[in-house]
Structures are given as C-alpha cells and as structure tokens.
C-alpha cells in the first residue's frame, strides 16, 4: 500500500468531482435556483455552449471521438488519488450555496425530482455521493480489469479519506463511451462531513428540519476491501442479472447501496446525533430507486400551481442532468423528472399520466448519452406514451434524427426552456413541513426520526 501523501498537497475540488455527474450538476442547478438564476447548458459559460452547438453538427464518428476525449479530460490521474481531499469537496459544495437562513435543508441521495422540490421550497441540498472520474484507457467490456485497477489505486484515496466509502462502478452498457477512457469512483460519505455540519449550524433557522434523502436501492457488488465495493452495471435499461451474465464480470458476494443513487445508511446515524445535539428535527424521506419520487413531486407542484390560479396543464420532463428548476417554476411547468431515457422511466411517465388529470402539452428534455444501449427509450417511444394520454408532445432543444447522439442538446435545452411561457401568478416558496405532508398524500411518505437514537418515531 502506498503511503498517504501529506495533506498539504491536495487537488482542487473542482478538479476532483466530475462536472457531468448527477450530483454535481443537480447541485449546481439548485444553487442557480436559490440564486434566482436560470440554468442553461449545465451551468457552462455561453462560449462553451456555442462551441458545443457548433461541434454538434459534426458527423457522429468525429463527434463521438471528441465527446469521449473531452469527457475523459476530467479524469484524475490515478497516481494522484491520495491527493483527493473529500473534506475540501464537501466544503466546496456547501460554500457554493447562497448564504442565508433556510427553513429546512435536504441532505442525501441525488434526485432530480427532489431538486425541483427543493427549488420550490427554496432550501439547499447537500449531496452525499459524488463521482470522481479516474483516468484509465481500457476495454469497456472488461469489468474484471476495472476491478483490478481499483484494487491497485483505491487504497491511497481511502487512506487519505476515512469518511467515505468507495463504490467503484463500471457500466459498460450506458457509459460505454466514457469507461473506455476513465473509470467511475463514486464516493459516499458515511459520516457527516465537518463542512456540512458547519453549513447546517450556520444556515438553518432555529428548529428547522433536516430532511435526509435516502434512496434505499441496492445493487450486487464485490466487496473489494474495507470501505471499497465494486459494482458492474447501474440503474438504467437493464436489471443487475443482465449485467452479471455478461463475460468478464466479477461474481458478486453481497449487496450495497446503488453506486450513483443509493444512500449509505451509516450517514443517517451521524446526522441524527448532530440533529439531536443542535435542536433540529430529522425527517427521513426514503424511497427505492431514483424514479420513485417523481410522481409525488409532480402531483404536489401541480396542485401548488393550480391552487394559485395557474392552469397546471403543461408537463415538463427533465431528464438526468438536463433541466432548469428556476425556469420550470417560473413557467409554472409541472416537472416530472426522469433519471434516464430508458424503458423503466418511460413506464413511470406512463403511470403518472394515467394517474393524473390530463395535461395539455408535454415537453421532454431527452438526455443524450451517445449510445443506443439496451433498454433505451427513443423519442418515438416517449411520443407514443404522451399521445396515448391525449397530450401534444415536444422535445425542446433536441434534433430527434440524431438521437441518442445529439450531444449539442446539452447546449440547446437552455434557450428552449427560456422560451417556455411565463407563469401568470406571483409565488411564495412552499413551506417544508406542509410540502412533506402533501408528498405523503401523493404517495411519498417521510418519517420523523428520534434524533438521539436514529430510530423512527412516527410515520
């Protein structure tokens, strides 16, 4: 095992955390909403967006090469993993949130639906899983080799960061392009980072609740070492079994929180102790799988809109990192977030449309991951489902002929959402506890936690 480097030499958080990941982008989108700003082109400068729009016209074989290379440029040198400082990453995420007194805060799993809810509540969210991409050129179809790579390089990272668990993830189906030039180290805090505790202490109103967001979904893993598991595949178009049947796939020896969306249950205990010591109620919002909260959030926000006189008949389907909570709220568009363009998410939208009063129009922001992967849902699939429920459909910012290769959609969804009709009525942020009650009415229940023991006290 390599000796841990001196703490004086650390990588800047911006160089450590992937800018294209669900946690970092959803966090940035919420920060924009708390700052009253739209969130076009994933928060990148306009010049970058213009370049992406121009590059998006290139033939796919060339664009594919560029897309992979640009993404891979974010990878951390594996020899420098010991210089990753997750305390600094937590401080960077907390410090990015506008300083003011908040009536509640969310902490936990990444979830786009809950990011939109947090924007409507005007409360912050502290992510507890982040992606650290690590440079590695390899055959995407060899997860076994990825596992060995992790065995070799992870110890320095883990030794330098005792507060995290490494969920090394290898999805050769949906991340086929990216895992050819990097590997995905997803790091989950299993203790409350000092910067998060400091932020909560400084930013919460007296007695304000802390909402622990826990996606309880799990995935088969190989236990590689203490605080180190390896996951083949990920939530999306295929079930775990389909990944495990593929060649060169290490056999799992257990289950763990799903790498990208799942929550480390240990964090809740530390958070409960902090809440008890600081006089803040802890509310646990638990669900299984990233798609689960979307229906309840959409139902709640639609009622909120119609309750103040909006029509509430326009649905906006943000997807993965494509979305703009601020523009969504200020156009009174009901957000039904989907985690990826896959059949499972499509079924969820179908269910929502079936269970809801009819929408007049549905706009869908389809994320482009560059691969016609197993289980993908195409624009035609989405349109068919929407039409079945009597609504018209649009794909703002997307050139459907290029799906799933229309990478420039990343830079076009912003101008498209800017053109959404403006809401008519002034609005006041939702009250957190009232929102939790209404979420429960819509099927997403929360549990108040007795803070000193971490055990549930009421449903």
């Amino acid at each position, binding site marked *: 095992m390599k000796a841990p480097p001196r703490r004086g030499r650390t990588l800047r958080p911006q160089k450590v955390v992937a800018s294209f990941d669900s946690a970092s982008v959803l966090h940035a989108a919420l920060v924009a909403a*708390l*700052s*009253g*700003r739209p969130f076009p082109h994933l928060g990148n400068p306009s010049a970058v967006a213009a370049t992406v729009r121009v590059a998006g016209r290139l033939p796919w074989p060339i664009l594919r090469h560029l897309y992979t290379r640009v993404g891979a440029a974010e990878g951390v040198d594996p020899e420098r993993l010991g210089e990753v400082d997750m305390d600094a990453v937590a401080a960077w995420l907390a410090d990015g949130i*506008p*300083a*003011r*007194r*908040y*009536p509640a805060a969310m902490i936990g799993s990444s979830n786009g639906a809950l990011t939109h809810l947090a924007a409507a509540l*005007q409360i912050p969210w502290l992510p507890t899983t982040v992606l650290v991409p690590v440079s590695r050129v390899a055959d995407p179809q060899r997860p076994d080799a990825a596992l060995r790579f992790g065995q070799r390089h992870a110890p320095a990272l883990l030794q330098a960061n005792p507060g995290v668990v490494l969920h090394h993830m290898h999805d050769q189906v949906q991340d086929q392009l990216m895992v050819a030039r990097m590997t995905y180290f997803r790091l989950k805090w299993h203790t409350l980072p000092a910067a998060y505790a400091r932020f909560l202490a400084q930013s919460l*109103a007296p007695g304000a609740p802390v909402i622990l967001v826990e996606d309880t979904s799990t995935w088969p893993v190989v236990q590689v070492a203490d605080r180190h598991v390896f996951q083949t595949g990920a939530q999306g178009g295929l079930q775990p079994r389909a990944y495990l049947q593929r060649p060169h796939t290490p056999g799992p020896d257990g289950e763990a929180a799903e790498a990208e969306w799942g929550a480390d249950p240990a964090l809740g205990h530390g958070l409960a102790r902090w809440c008890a010591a600081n006089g803040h109620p802890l509310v646990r919002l638990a669900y299984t799988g990233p798609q689960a909260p979307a229906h309840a959030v959409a139902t709640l926000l639609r009622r909120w809109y119609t309750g103040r006189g909006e029509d509430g008949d326009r649905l906006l389907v943000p997807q993965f990192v494509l979305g703009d909570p601020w523009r969504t709220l*200020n*156009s*009174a568009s009901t957000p039904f977030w989907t985690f990826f363009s896959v059949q499972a998410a499509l079924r969820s939208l179908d269910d929502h449309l079936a269970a809801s009063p009819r929408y007049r129009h549905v706009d869908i922001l389809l994320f482009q991951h560059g691969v016609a992967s197993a289980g993908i849902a195409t624009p035609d699939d989405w349109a068919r489902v929407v039409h079945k429920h009597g609504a018209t459909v649009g794909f703002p910012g997307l050139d459907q002929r290029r799906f799933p290769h229309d990478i420039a959609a990343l830079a076009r969804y912003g101008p498209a959402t800017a053109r959404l009709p*403006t*809401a*008519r*009525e*002034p*609005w*006041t*942020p939702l009250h957190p506890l009232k929102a939790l009650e209404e979420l429960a009415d819509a099927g997403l229940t929360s549990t108040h936690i007795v803070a000193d023991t971490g055990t549930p006290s009421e449903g």
Partner: protein
Amino acid sequence: MRKALIVPGAAVRRYVRDAVEALPTVGISGELLAAPGEPKVPADLGEYGRELAGRITGGGGVDVLIGLSVGAQAAAVAAVETAKAPRTCSPPPRGSVGRLVLISPTVDPAARSAPRLVGRWLAGGRVEPVSLLPQQLPDWGRAGPARIATVVRSARRIAIERLLPGVSCPVTVVHAERDVITSHAYAAHLAAAVDGDLVIVPGATHSWPHDDPARFAALIDRLIP
C-alpha cells in the same frame, strides 16, 4: 377601506401610477407618494423615511407601506421610526404600519460600490420594457442630477438588512424574476432574516409593478387582511 402608501423609486413616480390606481378595484385606497429626490421632497432616503414616519404616526397609521426600489429603503426607515412610537391598540396599532412590503429593494450589498451600481443599473435598462424610459425621463429631468446623486449616495449608505430587526410589523419582500439590479439572493436573505415572506413575480423586471396593475393589486389584496 384598507389604506396603502406607496413610496416610488429614485425621483420617478409616473411609471407606477396605473398600478396604484388599480388598488381601489380590490378595495384598497392607495396613495402614491412623491418620489425621493423630487423637487421639494427630501432626496436623502433617511430624511425622507423619517418625515414619512411622522406623517404615518400623525395620520393614524397605514395598513400597508410599500416601497419600490430605493423607495423600499425609505419605507424601511419609516417602518423603524413608527415602531419606536408608543402603541395604543392593535391590529394595526394606531399610528403604525400594518405590513411593510419591499418591492425590488436596493441596494444589494454586492453592488454598493458606485461602479457596480451603475453597471447593474445599465444592465437593468436592457431588460426593462421600452415603455419605461419615456415615463421616467421627464421625472428625472425635473429632479436634476444633483438631487438624483443625493438619492444614490444615501441609497448606498442605508442598508435595509440592518434596519429590519427594528421593524415590528410583518415584512414581505417581492422579487422580480428578471431583476438584475437587486439579486434574488439579497431579496431572499432579507425575507429570511425577519421570518418574512418572499414573493417572486415571474417574468417581471426591477421596475415592477410598472405595466402590471392587475397583478400588483391582486398581490397587495392578498397580503393585507
């Protein structure tokens, strides 16, 4: 009939006349006050606010005091001063302010230097409706540059966030979605600091409620019982 006093922005007031005239349609008697910096009216926002407080206290109070832009600073000064006056009954106590409404309150701490304030004001001009300037230019012309400069100097000096703890009535902060002079972060900070309400007006700019009388009247109607 419920009574509202409206303090307009720097040396301008005709741009919100239609909005104030819409208030009686919802059962509110609205009086649009002279703008800070107008001829014969204090240009210093502190002095303006103290004079206004005297008028409110002497006149038996007001259900809602509404300040627009720098007028919000003058209104905050007035609300603090009236809160110091002895109370006789409730609600609202005779001689006091029932609710303070700060619309597009200035000056965001991030823009208190002269160059930044000018930069934001110029940027704001780019998103305002074209109908605004023809209504504001004659007002500014009447006030003259010296009085406007006094308004701006006092606006940079008076920090609403330091005044609000001295306000005893409920506070509502209204932020226009497309306001580039006052940041959303500042408006939200002000509301949170006094457990007040934050209201966001979709599509609106810093000059709201210019050109939007119906929404303005409906909002004020909702805010006061």
